[in-house]
């Protein structure tokens, strides 16, 4: 993979920030968009813009074709059995909210239990809390150790005959940990419990095969894998999606409407009320083609090298605490300069043109685990370079000198 060539595909990366070359290391929050994705959006609005489904005219058919082809692309990308298992959403948060609401309505009763890992993003905690409260259900927590690895051995002890679903992230947005979701799914299935995998931080780094994983549900966001914002996916096994009631009502999700009785559309449209983000779906198709062209395994290998290099160099500085030391990680490096506040570190790096994220990263339970108020997080993507890691390390050194002397 020629990284310089790849960088040319991302026009935003060429800019200077406060006089310094932009070093964009906030990829776990959102990724930058290659020119082909930008072009696909422009092309859609220039040539095909029209609302999808049920239009009799040429443009509507064309737009529908683009939208449905995007669904087929996602189906292939994660190797789902059928296109009916691919529901378009705004992003992984909406995917999880959809599932939490519909699943709770159908399957959760007072006194039932849900198991959620301690390292989940708030968007895989709060939707379940809201629905569990409504239903009088209880949330149990699968803990992780100080290296940031889930204590999967404890899962059996948490499972009871009241456990209705297990929700776990494939990769932690804060610690980088790649969880052994396959093992979790095997244990869950031996008790006939379905599993939701939050793949928001995995889809851009790891080859996901939902049939091989055998997960029952999977959530992902397009903007984390070089597509536009506002498009995501809820994958669900057909046997479950068929049984779940719709999440929202509106156009496109119905078969017939009368005031006496409304019948719902077939899958997956049952879960796609209102005008979908068809432009976003098209951009996701283009982005996945782009990733396929480069090869996810090549991307992952490059990111792994960057992470290894960054971890070694940051550790060598001394006076830095790294959070998340799992054996298997995606390219996320969370740390604090000892004696300095993450926010100060982030502000100094910003003025050096280095974009990182600071704070709790929407994972307050992880902060509580370590007894901290936040971390600085650098997250690497396919277009990042070793020189950029050097810039980060120099920036940290500078911040360390300014903040702790």
């Amino acid at each position, binding site marked *: 993979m020629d990284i310089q060539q790849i960088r040319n595909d991302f026009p935003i990366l060429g800019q200077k920030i406060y006089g310094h070359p932009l070093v964009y290391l906030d990829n776990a929050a959102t990724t930058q968009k290659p020119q082909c994705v930008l072009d696909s959006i422009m092309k859609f609005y220039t040539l095909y813009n029209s609302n999808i489904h049920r239009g009799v005219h040429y443009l509507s058919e064309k737009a529908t074709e683009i939208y449905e082809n995007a669904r087929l692309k996602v189906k292939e990308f994660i190797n789902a059995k059928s296109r009916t298992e691919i529901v378009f959403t705004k992003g992984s948060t909406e995917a999880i909210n959809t599932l939490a609401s519909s699943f709770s309505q159908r399957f959760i009763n007072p006194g039932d239990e849900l198991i959620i890992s301690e390292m989940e993003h708030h968007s895989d905690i709060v939707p379940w809390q809201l629905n569990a409260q409504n239903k009088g259900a209880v949330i149990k927590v699968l803990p992780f150790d100080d290296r940031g690895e889930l204590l999967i051995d404890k899962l059996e002890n948490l499972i009871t005959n009241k456990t209705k679903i297990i929700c776990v992230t494939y990769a932690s947005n804060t610690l980088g940990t790649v969880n052994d979701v396959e093992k979790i799914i095997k244990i869950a299935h031996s008790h006939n419990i379905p599993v939701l995998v939050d793949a928001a931080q995995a889809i851009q780094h790891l080859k996901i095969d939902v049939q091989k994983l055998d997960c029952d549900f999977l959530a992902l966001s397009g903007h984390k894998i070089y597509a536009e914002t506002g498009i995501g996916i809820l994958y669900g096994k057909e046997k479950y999606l068929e049984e779940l009631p719709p999440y929202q009502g509106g156009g496109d999700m119905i078969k017939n409407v009368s005031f006496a009785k409304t019948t719902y559309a077939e899958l997956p449209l049952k879960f796609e009320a209102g005008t979908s983000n068809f432009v976003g779906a098209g951009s996701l198709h283009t982005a996945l083609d782009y990733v396929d062209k480069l090869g996810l395994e090549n991307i992952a290998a490059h990111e792994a090298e960057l992470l290894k290099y960054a971890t070694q160099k940051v550790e060598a500085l001394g006076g830095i605490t790294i959070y998340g030391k799992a054996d298997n990680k995606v390219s996320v490096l969370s740390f604090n300069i000892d004696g*300095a506040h993450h*926010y*100060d570190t982030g*502000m100094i790096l910003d*003025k*050096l043109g280095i974009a990182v994220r600071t704070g709790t990263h929407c994972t307050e339970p992880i902060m509580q685990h370590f007894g901290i*108020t*936040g971390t600085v997080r650098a997250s690497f993507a396919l277009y990042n370079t070793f020189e950029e890691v050097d810039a980060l390390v120099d920036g940290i050194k500078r911040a360390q000198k*300014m903040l702790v002397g």
Partner: protein
Amino acid sequence: MLTINEIQDEIIEEFSVYDEWLDKYEYLIELGNSLEIIDESQKTPDNIIQGCQSRVWLDAKMDSDGTLNFKADSDAIITKGIIALLIRVFNHQKPQDIIDAQLYFIDEIGLSANLSPTRANGLLAMIKQIRYYALAFNALNK
């Protein structure tokens, strides 16, 4: 005693010598470190202004001359430096003057991004709280 605007102009003047961002930050860190330390007993839940990035504590008293005396702290040092500036502007001023004040120095010295509602560093809420204190003490005085 200088007026609020005279102090703001003084600060703008002080910052005009810095061309480099990090020099400004160095100065803010210095200010933050020299800010009178707030007593741990005053860092109560009542006095905390919770941001998701950094936390700010603020306490206010009225002195016998009818002016307000603010004490504040933050766990982030650059935030604390900005707090030191705010305290310098508002301390020993009359409640009515604080209520009437237009705060322009932060914008002028290029730190307005720190007051964006989405930054969640507690600073915007702190300024609001300073005004609430001024309103409350003003009402108390009447």
